């Protein structure tokens, strides 16, 4: 029996019944990963995974994560295993410590099995800028479509069914967009709920740790067992948040759901529109209230530029430690400045340099009030507008992307910034947000996204869970579709 394409719960059931062992499963996963054609892997942890799996002999029945293998986006530090953020500047860099979320997962006996590719240092939305090149979507014809980013390898790997879950990070939509194009669940909780210690910073107040799974319940479970205050991260919420599992099956009746009309109005994919409207009807049939609401279009248009100004500026300092002096892929030079200049020029791709330049531009003394500082004020205006909406509505429901995964090299539609980038609001406001499969469009996944107010992770996951019951797209993976 193949142990791939199983959810966490399904694999757990096999362990409990003694039908298989972690070592068995790990070996099978390793086999499959070695045959992967979608360029999803950075450093592998195969020996460590086998060794760890071999020690797991007594099943922990109440611990869903016992013996479950998972993939790790390569911007999470893993002790003893190279973590280069898919950037040449960190080739050969081996962390001395594990990221906190990995420590917590390992404590629960989950097995990290390999690092996955990403858009370089977390910057990018297509999954094509990592130093190993394009990471492919397993859907569609082989190696023809992108999977999105920046958590490209983690999304692709879970969509391929190799592992039941993977770790991702989300600064603008880096979990929730690829989840849409890969037909899986991608969840980003409220900011400060999961420790970012060990996650390579891109922009701290937008960065989030999150998960890819093939069921909503399992994203909720992973969140439940890894969330909570960490002394090492001075942005983790001190007050413990309530359980999200206890009420996850609450019926939809009375739930108030908002759909932003201006965004729906610019959708062009007819299948998507049909699937979305069909879902809306099903939600109404279940007793939910679904309103198509107006929303200030100037605010929607400001989302992408606000995101770019803030993140490009702050990412410069988050990566100012990458100099080659006390770690990293140093390039020679005759002086400190030369070493650093040569190392950074060779180590960063052009795209990263462009972001840095843009960021440095908006931070200049003479410019910053009109740019960077204005973007911080813009953030407040945007968040205030959404906070107002959340006073009435439990969640905002929208397509996670305007269409299925694009072909490689396919140009974006002109003026499609709004529908392609609106999910960044969840990063501006720290809101919990989840993408899950909506349907298939000629065999290619479509995703729907929900975003709720801060600390409403339980409510969000509950509504998402009920949507999954309605779409029946539980454990969607490429093997099922092809």
């Amino acid at each position: 029996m193949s142990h791939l394409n199983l959810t966490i719960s399904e694999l757990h059931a096999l362990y409990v019944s003694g039908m298989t062992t972690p070592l068995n499963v790990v070996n099978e996963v390793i086999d499959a990963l070695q045959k992967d054609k979608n360029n999803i892997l950075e450093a592998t942890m195969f020996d460590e995974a086998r060794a760890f799996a071999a020690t797991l002999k007594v099943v922990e029945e109440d611990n869903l994560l016992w013996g479950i293998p998972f993939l790790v986006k390569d911007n999470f530090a893993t002790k003893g295993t190279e973590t280069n953020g898919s950037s040449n500047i960190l080739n050969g860099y081996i962390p001395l410590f594990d990221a906190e979320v990995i420590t917590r997962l390992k404590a629960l006996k989950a097995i990290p099995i390999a690092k996955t590719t990403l858009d370089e240092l977390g910057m990018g939305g297509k999954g094509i800028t990592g130093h190993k090149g394009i990471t492919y979507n397993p859907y569609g014809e082989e190696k023809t479509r992108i999977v999105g980013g920046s958590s490209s390898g983690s999304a692709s790997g879970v969509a391929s069914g190799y592992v039941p879950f993977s770790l991702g990070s989300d600064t603008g939509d880096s979990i929730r967009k690829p989840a849409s194009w890969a037909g899986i669940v991608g969840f980003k909780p409220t900011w400060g709920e999961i420790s970012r210690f060990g996650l390579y910073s891109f922009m701290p107040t937008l960065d989030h740790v999150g998960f890819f799974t093939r069921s909503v319940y399992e994203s909720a479970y992973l969140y439940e067992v890894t969330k909570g205050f960490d002394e090492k991260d001075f942005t983790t919420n001190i007050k413990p948040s309530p359980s999200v599992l206890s009420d996850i099956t609450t019926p939809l009746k009375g739930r108030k759901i908002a759909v932003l009309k201006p965004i729906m109005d610019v959708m062009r994919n007819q299948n998507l529109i049909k699937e979305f409207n069909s879902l809306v009807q099903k939600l109404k049939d279940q007793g939910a209230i679904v309103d198509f609401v107006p929303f200030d279009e100037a605010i929607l248009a400001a989302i992408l530029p606000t995101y770019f100004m803030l993140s490009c500026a702050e990412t410069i300092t988050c990566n100012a430690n990458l100099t080659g002096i006390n770690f990293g892929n140093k390039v020679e030079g005759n002086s400190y400045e030369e070493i650093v200049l040569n190392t950074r020029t060779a180590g960063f791709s052009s795209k990263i340099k462009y972001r840095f330049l843009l960021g440095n531009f908006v931070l200049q003394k003479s410019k910053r009030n009109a740019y960077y500082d204005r973007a911080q004020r813009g953030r407040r205006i945007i968040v205030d507008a959404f906070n107002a909406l959340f006073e009435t509505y439990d969640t905002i429901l929208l397509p996670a992307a305007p269409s299925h995964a694009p072909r490689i090299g396919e140009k974006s539609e002109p003026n499609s910034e709004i529908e392609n980038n609106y999910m960044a609001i969840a990063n501006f406001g720290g809101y919990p947000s989840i993408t899950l499969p909506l349907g298939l469009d000629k065999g290619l996944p479509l995703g729907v996204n929900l975003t709720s107010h801060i600390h409403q992770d339980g409510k969000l996951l509950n509504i998402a869970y009920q949507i999954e019951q309605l779409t029946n797209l539980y454990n969607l993976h490429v093997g099922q579709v092809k």
Partner: protein
Amino acid sequence: MEKIDIKKLAREILISLSPEEEKEFMEEFSYFIEQFKKLEALPHVDEVAPMFFPIKEERDFLREDEPEALYSTKEILSNSKNMKDTFIVIPKVVK
């Protein structure tokens, strides 16, 4: 059209661009400067208070002043190509 001194800005953050990169960057720059203008349409955008943190929680946690276990000198320097004995060594820095 906004003016930008690419070489100066690049120098400040210790990176350099090839002529091709400079050209490609200028295209991106033009595009983004246009995008950035969209903030001008936001109501009271230059009057409201900036937002730094998305969550406002009253917190008082501070780390206790107790030494933690450390990695050895060898381990802590192991990722550097400039390690020599117990130091990081670089060409002499002229103040």
